């Protein structure tokens, strides 16, 4: 299975999927930590993948969505953005709505 298939499987089988540095208990980057805090504050049920332990995905995920930085959030199989966008959406109440929609679907 190539890296795009692996990524495709991860985002299609997890309604809320975060590619990050570290994990939810020990984020290894402030932006990844902020992403976790925002997901937690939404009460999201989510999966994470630690790119520091998977170099193929660390590189592949940047090409997958033509997005040069990590973290990256996918909801309902769609790319949402990084931690700045998550913060903006959260301030507008949109992140909560998006996650709720996915998790009640």
């Amino acid at each position, binding site marked *: 299975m190539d890296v795009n298939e692996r990524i495709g499987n991860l985002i299609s089988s997890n309604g809320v999927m975060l590619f990050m540095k570290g994990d939810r208990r020990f984020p290894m980057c402030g932006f990844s930590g902020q992403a976790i805090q925002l997901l937690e504050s939404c009460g999201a049920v989510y999966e994470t993948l630690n790119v520091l332990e998977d170099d193929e995905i660390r590189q592949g995920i940047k090409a997958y969505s*033509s997005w040069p930085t990590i973290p990256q959030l996918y909801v309902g199989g769609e790319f949402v953005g990084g931690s700045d966008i998550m913060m903006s959406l959260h301030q507008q109440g949109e992140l909560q709505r998006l996650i709720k929609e996915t998790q009640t679907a």
Partner: protein
Amino acid sequence: MQVQTTIEQKLAAGLQPAVLQVINESGMHNVPAGSESHFKVVAVSDAFVDLGLVQRHRQINGLLADELAGPVHALSLQAFTPEEWVARGGQFDASPDCLGGSSAG
């Protein structure tokens, strides 16, 4: 200051921003003094009118593709239209603290 100056010049040319702040946040991170690896960009431009958040970030990431492929490891973006900027009272969000994670990428 070379990377910072390049970022400022490329964004000034590409966006004709009404407000542009390029902040070197490398000192917040686990990198040598004087590094130019972590930046925050706050840009206010008519170029963002009618663009979603992801599209705004893609536009900036595109202008800075060379820097992101090279020395710049983290880029936090806050992109507003002039109207949004006034509504926010000219305030932008602070970056999260570094959590000590790894270098490049």
